[in-house]
């Protein structure tokens, strides 16, 4: 099969996955932006004068990159996982299963569309929240690197969850018991340095912590740990999760009986 055909098939699946969420963008893009803004209004307002994280940075400013990254991660995960589980349950995944598309094509398209949605929501949150507090991009390269890697990793994780889950409640469990705690315990709302030593140590085992910390570094030029350490941990996590997702797709895990 020629490379042009392979590329064309992959592009179609990517286009279809983007079109799928874009057709309901009120629910898939606008709603998460609103949620993030509500977090900012409430926590920012209540905690602005009570919490000091970095010396030169106000709490609301500190909070914005965390909320942006949280939105990127949650929506990247939601996209691939909900698309797959819906197609599995309604049975229309058969349209894809009878095609010659390889596991790489599936991976690139599902993860790619997840990244598009995650980054769109992230940009939306950033665009709205910039009205509330001043924000600079001191080291912008890190912003792009962590946004892309984080969205990619959560897209791949959503792919795994979508393959594994057979029912909507299993998917909800994955989301509520794995994704939500990992996001909330990653330092979105606080610096982990303000935690007791035990919880600091636990936080350092959470790859989400490094995504948020590295992403924030891009805005403020300061971070809890070195951005290079964060980068190596996040990149390694992305590679491991992607390798698992690709393997599951290649063997047709829960796809081909």
């Amino acid at each position, binding site marked *: *099969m020629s490379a*042009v*055909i*392979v590329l*064309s*098939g992959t*592009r*179609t*699946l990517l*286009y*279809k996955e983007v*079109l*799928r969420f874009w*057709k*309901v963008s009120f629910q898939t893009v606008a709603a998460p932006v609103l949620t993030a803004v509500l977090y900012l209004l409430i926590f920012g307002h209540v905690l602005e004068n009570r919490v000091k994280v970095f010396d030169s940075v106000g709490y609301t400013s500190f909070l914005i990159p965390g909320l942006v990254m949280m939105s990127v991660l949650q929506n990247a995960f939601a996209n691939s996982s909900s698309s797959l589980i819906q*197609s599995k349950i*309604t*049975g*229309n995944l*058969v*349209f*894809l*299963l*009878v*095609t*010659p*598309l*390889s596991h790489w094509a599936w991976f690139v398209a599902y993860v790619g569309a997840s990244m598009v949605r995650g980054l769109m929501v992230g940009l939306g949150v950033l665009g709205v929240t910039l009205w509330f507090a001043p924000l600079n991009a001191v080291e912008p390269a890190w912003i792009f690197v962590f946004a892309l890697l984080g969205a990619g990793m959560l897209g791949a994780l959503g792919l795994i969850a979508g393959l594994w889950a057979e029912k909507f409640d299993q998917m909800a469990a994955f989301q509520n018991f794995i994704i939500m705690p990992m996001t909330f315990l990653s330092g979105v709302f606080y610096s982990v340095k303000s935690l007791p030593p035990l919880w600091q140590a636990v936080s350092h085992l959470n790859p989400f912590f490094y995504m948020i910390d590295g992403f924030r570094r891009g805005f403020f030029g300061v971070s809890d740990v070195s951005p290079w350490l964060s980068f190596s941990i996040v990149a390694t996590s992305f590679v491991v999760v992607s390798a698992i997702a690709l393997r599951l797709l290649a063997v*047709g895990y829960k796809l*081909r*009986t």
Partner: protein
Amino acid sequence: MPAISFQNVSKTYHSARGDVHALDRVSFDIAPGEFFGLLGPNGAGKTTLISILAGLARATGGRVLVHGHDVVTDYAITRRSLGVVPQELVFDPFFSVREALRIQSGYFGVRHNDAWIDELLANLGLADKANANMRQLSGGMKRRVLVAQALVHRPPVIVLDEPTAGVDVELRQTLWQFIARLNTQGHTVLLTTHYLEEAEALCGRIAMLKQGRVVALDRTSALLAGTASTMMRFKLDCALPTSLLAQSRVIGRIVQVKAHDATEVEQVLATLRAAGCQPEDLEIGRADLEDVFLEIMQGETLKEAA
């Protein structure tokens, strides 16, 4: 080279209650350009066999070739050759009919395919539904879209898994005219159906499956010739004499009795008269595929019992 070659295909499902042999060493070939029927009762393994062909399921033994290519190792080639109409009435609620067809076409690397998509829509009576959302379509219309989706990349081999289950007469006519025309143009067709008169009218050759095994495989005409050639049909108001039960099929008041020749016909009538029964609306005709099917399936059950 056969269009499709099933070679010792077995499929075993493992469950807590023990192994289920869905397919047991199924072997047969389908030549290019054939219109081939795959018949069997529910649970015989027809859909499993088609699923293995299409790559939706994996065989536990044997292999399947499409134009000489293995469906597991050369899936990229074989899936391009196949157009599969699934049995379940599935659809993607996010898209319109035209979007769904363009996307399906794109998966196979066929872009700018609107001329063929329009032709499919016209031939399947979908032209005025092109921009309707899939959710708005009736069951029959969704079925037509499934057929269009299977054909959108112009596959040389068309696989239809009970495409007319629960659809109205009009669609059945439209569909069969279209599929028959594609077959005349050289497309190979593999069909499973519960409507035996459809199989009799359309299929040049037929395989019958029962409990995962091929129990009959022949030209349709040969299958029809090889069985009791005459079938008596009549209505009866009294109970059928017990001596006729073994060779009869009773559906409500209607009785069908097998008879090989005129002497047997006379004997049946004499038995009825002796029992004081008066047959109404008596017809004597050739056996059809349904009779052959039941005879073969019953024969198999007797063999198992013996």
